[in-house]
C-alpha cells in the first residue's frame, strides 16, 4: 500500500489568492493512500524542501504530490528534495495549480474545484508510480556551431579555449557574417573589421577549431551528447587544400557582371571570387549560376591562370557525417526586403538605400572606397533623410506583413550613421524621422544626444509618408508631429532602417534540430529569463540574433554564455538518461515488429528468446527489447503495439488511465 504525502504551495499570493489552498489540502486528505497533507507558503524555498524531507521520514511516505507551479519550473527541485529525503526521485508528481489554474481563473470557487481535481489526478498517478533508475550515456566531446558570424566565432573560440574540439559550419564561402559588412560599431565608433578580423584569424589558426565554409547542415540524428550531423559541403569548384588565395583568377575571370552580395549588389564581382580581402578561409569560389565554363563548357580561364592547379570543374557536393555532443545555432539575421514599402521609392531610385547598404557606402573597402556618393550619379549628397522603423513595430494584421517586434538595433546604428556623416561631411544636412528613439544600453543615450547636440543632426518626431524621385532629387513628404506640420524636404538620399528578421535557413534548421521557434521564426529559449541560451531541446544552444534582435555586445555576451553551457555539457563523461523510457513485456509481445517501424531512434530490436511453456517445454519466440540508452521516451511504440506489450515508464497506460478517471469522476 502506498503512503502518499501531499504538499500544497501558496506561492505567496500567486496561488493562494485564487485557490483556497487549505481546502485543497483538506480535500487531498480524504483521497485513498494519502497519509499526510499540508499547505505551505513557498514549497520551493529551502524550508519548503526541508518539509518534504522531514515528512518523508516522519510518515514513511512512498510517494509525494506537490501542488505548485508548472513541473517545467520546479519538478527537478522537488525530485531532488525527495531523493534527499530517501525517496526514489521518480515517486514525485506535480499538480500544476499555478500556470494551469490560479493564473488563468479569476473566480475562487471554480479555481479551487479545479485545483482539487488536478490534485486527485496527480495522487491517482503517483499511486501507480514505480521507482525508476536512470541509466547513463556517453558524451561525444565535440561541439558543432552552425553559423560563422560574430556569434558563432565567439562561441567556437570560447569552447576551443576550454580544450574541446569544435566545428563551425558556415553557408557562405567565408566566415565573418554581418559584422564583416559593417563599417563602424556603436557607441565607441571603432572599426568593425579591426575587431572582427583578428577573431576570424584566431578561429582559423586554433587547432581545436575546424571551419566548414560554403557548407550546410543537411541532417541531424541522435540526441544530447550523441548527435550525428550530416554536413553538406557545397561544391566550390576550387580545391581548398591547393588554393593559395592569390586572387589571380578573380582578376582574370571574364565574367564581370555578377552582383556582389558582399556589397549588397552596389557593385559587381567576377564569377570566381573571394568575398572580401580578409576572408577566412581565403579561398576562391566559383559561382555556378554565372560561370560560363560550368554553364556551357566554354572558358576555363581561371584554370589556365591558376599555377596551383586548384580549379576543379568536376567537383560535386560532398556529404560527411560527424558526431557531436552539443550543437549551437548561431544563424543570425537579415534585414527584411523593403519592396512592400515602395511609398519610400526603394525600387524606383538607386538613391533610396537600406541602412546596411549605407554601411557599405561609408566603408573604405566598399564600392565607393569610403567616399559617400549617391549610387545614381556618384555625386556627393547634401541632404540625407533617415527613416526609422521600416517594417518594425507593425500590428499583426498590417497589410505589409511587417514585424510586430522592435528591431532594437536601428535607433543606434542610425544615430551612428547620422553622426559619422556629419563628422565627415559637415556640409550635409541630416534628418532622422523617428517614432521613438530607443537607446537602452551603456553609453547609448549619451551617444544619441551627441548626435543631436554635438553634430547637429535634425531629429524629427514623425514619419515619412511618401518619397517622390523627381529631377534628380528625392521629394520627401513627412510629418513633424511636434511642429504640427507636413514637411517637404528635397533630399539627395533616403536611408531606410529596415526591420531585421531571422535568417531564412533558421526555420528548416529548427526542424532538423527539433528545436522550437516563435511565430517570428526566432529560436525559443528554454526559459525566457533563467535559461536564455538553451533551447528546450536538450543539447541544442542558442547564440546571437537567431534568438532575438541583438547588437554586437549582447551577441558576444550570449555567445560566451552559450559556450559555457556547451563546456558544462562536454565536461561530463556521461549524461544521466531520461528513465521514462519504453519497455516491452516479453510475455505479451507477439513479435510483430510494428513498434520497431515507428521508433524514430531505432531503439527497438528483435531477438529470439527461449521461453518455458506451461507444458514444461521450451519455445523460441521473437520478442522486442528496448535499448534504454537510445530510447527518448516519446511513446509512439506503446500505442502502435497491438498486444499491449509496450508501455512507457513514468507515463504508463495505467497511470494515464488513472488520471483520466480522476478528472472525469
Amino acid at each position: 500500500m502506498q503512503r502518499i504525502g501531499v504538499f500544497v504551495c501558496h506561492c505567496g499570493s500567486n496561488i493562494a489568492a485564487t485557490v483556497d489552498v487549505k481546502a485543497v489540502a483538506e480535500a487531498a486528505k480524504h483521497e485513498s493512500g494519502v497519509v499526510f497533507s499540508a499547505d505551505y507558503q513557498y514549497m520551493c524555498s529551502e524550508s519548503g524542501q526541508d518539509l518534504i524531507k522531514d515528512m518523508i521520514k516522519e510518515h514513511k511516505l512512498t510517494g509525494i504530490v506537490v501542488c505548485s507551479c508548472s513541473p517545467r519550473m520546479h519538478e527537478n527541485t522537488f525530485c531532488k528534495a525527495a531523493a534527499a529525503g530517501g525517496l526514489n526521485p521518480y515517486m514525485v508528481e506535480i499538480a500544476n495549480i499555478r500556470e494551469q489554474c490560479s493564473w488563468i481563473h479569476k473566480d475562487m470557487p471554480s479555481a479551487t474545484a479545479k485545483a482539487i481535481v488536478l490534485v486527485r489526478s496527480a495522487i491517482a498517478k503517483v499511486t501507480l508510480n514505480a521507482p525508476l533508475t536512470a541509466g547513463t550515456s556517453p558524451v561525444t566531446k565535440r561541439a558543432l556551431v552552425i553559423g560563422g558570424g560574430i556569434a558563432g566565432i565567439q562561441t567556437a573560440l570560447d569552447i576551443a579555449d576550454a580544450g574541446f574540439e569544435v566545428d563551425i559550419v558556415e553557408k557562405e564561402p567565408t566566415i565573418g557574417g554581418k559584422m564583416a559588412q559593417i563599417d563602424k560599431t556603436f557607441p565607441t565608433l571603432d572599426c568593425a573589421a579591426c575587431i572582427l578580423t583578428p577573431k576570424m584569424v584566431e578561429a582559423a589558426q586554433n587547432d581545436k577549431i575546424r571551419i566548414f565554409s560554403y557548407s550546410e547542415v543537411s541532417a541531424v540524428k541522435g540526441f544530447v551528447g550523441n548527435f550525428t550531423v550530416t554536413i553538406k559541403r557545397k561544391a566550390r569548384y576550387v580545391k581548398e587544400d591547393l588554393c593559395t588565395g592569390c586572387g589571380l583568377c578573380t582578376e582574370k575571370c571574364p565574367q564581370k557582371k555578377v552582383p556582389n552580395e558582399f556589397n549588397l549588389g552596389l557593385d559587381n564581382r567576377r564569377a570566381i571570387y573571394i568575398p572580401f580581402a580578409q576572408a577566412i578561409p581565403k579561398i576562391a569560389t566559383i559561382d555556378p549560376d554565372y560561370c560560363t565554363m560550368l554553364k556551357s563548357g566554354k572558358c576555363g580561364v581561371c584554370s589556365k591562370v591558376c599555377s596551383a592547379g586548384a580549379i576543379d570543374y568536376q567537383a560535386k557536393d560532398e556529404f560527411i557525417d560527424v558526431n557531436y555532443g552539443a550543437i549551437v545555432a548561431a544563424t543570425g539575421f537579415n534585414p527584411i526586403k523593403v519592396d512592400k514599402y515602395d511609398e519610400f521609392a526603394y525600387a524606383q531610385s538607386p538613391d533610396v538605400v537600406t541602412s546596411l547598404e549605407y554601411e557599405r557606402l561609408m566603408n573604405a573597402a566598399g564600392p565607393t572606397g569610403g567616399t559617400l556618393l549617391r549610387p545614381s550619379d556618384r555625386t556627393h549628397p547634401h541632404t540625407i533623410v533617415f527613416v526609422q522603423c521600416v517594417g518594425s513595430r507593425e500590428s499583426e494584421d498590417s497589410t505589409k506583413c511587417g514585424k510586430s517586434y522592435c528591431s532594437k538595433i536601428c535607433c543606434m546604428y542610425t544615430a551612428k550613421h547620422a553622426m559619422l556623416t556629419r563628422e565627415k561631411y559637415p556640409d550635409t544636412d541630416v534628418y532622422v524621422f523617428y517614432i521613438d528613439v530607443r537607446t537602452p544600453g551603456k553609453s547609448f543615450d549619451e551617444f544619441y544626444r551627441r548626435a543631436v547636440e554635438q553634430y547637429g543632426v535634425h531629429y524629427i518626431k514623425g514619419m515619412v509618408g511618401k518619397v517622390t524621385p523627381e529631377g534628380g532629387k528625392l521629394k520627401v513628404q513627412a510629418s513633424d508631429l511636434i511642429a504640427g506640420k507636413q514637411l517637404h524636404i528635397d533630399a539627395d538620399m533616403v536611408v531606410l532602417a529596415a526591420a531585421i528578421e531571422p535568417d531564412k535557413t533558421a526555420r528548416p534548421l529548427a526542424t532538423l534540430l527539433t528545436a522550437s521557434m516563435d511565430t517570428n521564426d526566432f529560436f525559443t529559449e528554454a526559459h525566457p529569463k533563467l535559461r536564455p541560451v538553451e533551447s528546450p531541446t536538450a543539447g541544442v544552444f542558442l547564440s546571437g540574433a537567431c534568438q532575438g534582435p541583438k547588437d554586437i555586445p549582447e551577441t558576444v555576451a550570449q555567445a560566451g554564455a552559450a559556450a559555457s553551457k556547451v563546456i558544462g555539457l562536454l565536461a561530463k563523461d556521461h549524461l544521466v538518461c531520461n528513465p521514462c523510457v519504453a519497455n516491452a513485456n516479453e510475455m505479451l509481445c507477439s513479435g510483430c515488429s510494428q513498434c520497431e517501424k515507428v521508433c524514430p531512434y531505432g531503439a527497438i530490436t528483435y531477438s529470439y528468446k527461449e521461453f518455458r511453456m506451461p507444458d514444461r517445454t521450451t519455445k523460441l519466440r521473437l520478442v522486442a527489447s528496448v535499448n534504454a540508452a537510445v530510447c527518448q521516451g516519446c511513446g509512439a511504440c506503446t500505442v502502435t503495439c497491438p498486444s499491449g506489450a509496450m508501455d512507457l515508464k513514468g507515463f504508463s497506460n495505467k497511470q494515464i488511465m488513472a488520471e483520466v478517471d480522476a478528472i472525469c469522476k
Partner: protein
Amino acid sequence: MSENNICREDILRISGVDTRKCMRCGKCSATCPAYDEMEYHPHQFVNMVENGDIEALVESPSLFKCLSCFACIDRCPRQVEPAKLVEAVRSACIRRQGHNHLSADAIPAILDPDIPQQALVSAFRKYSE
C-alpha cells in the same frame, strides 16, 4: 441622433476603428495628400476621437477635405485606418438635421461641361445624406 451628443462610442461603432492600436508615428499625416487643406490632420483625428474630443471635429471643415484615397488606410503600420474615423465623424455630422454640406441647389453654379457624372454622385454621397 440629437444635436450635441455625438460621443466617442458612436464614432468607434460607426467606423469600426480601434484607436488604441495607434502608436503615434504620424505616417497617416505624412502620407495624406489633403494635409495642407486640413485643420485637424489624420493622426489628430485618431487622438481626438480617443480622447472623446468629438465636437471640435464635427465643427471642423477638415471633414470635407478628406479625399478617401485610402493612402492612410494602406500605409498605417498598425491598421488603425484613420480615413474610417473621418468618414464616421462626417456621417455623424451630416446625419444631423439640416447639416448637409452640399445641396442640390448649389449644383448648377459649379457645373462645368466636362465634369463627369461620377464626380457629382461621389460628392453627394460624401457631403450629404
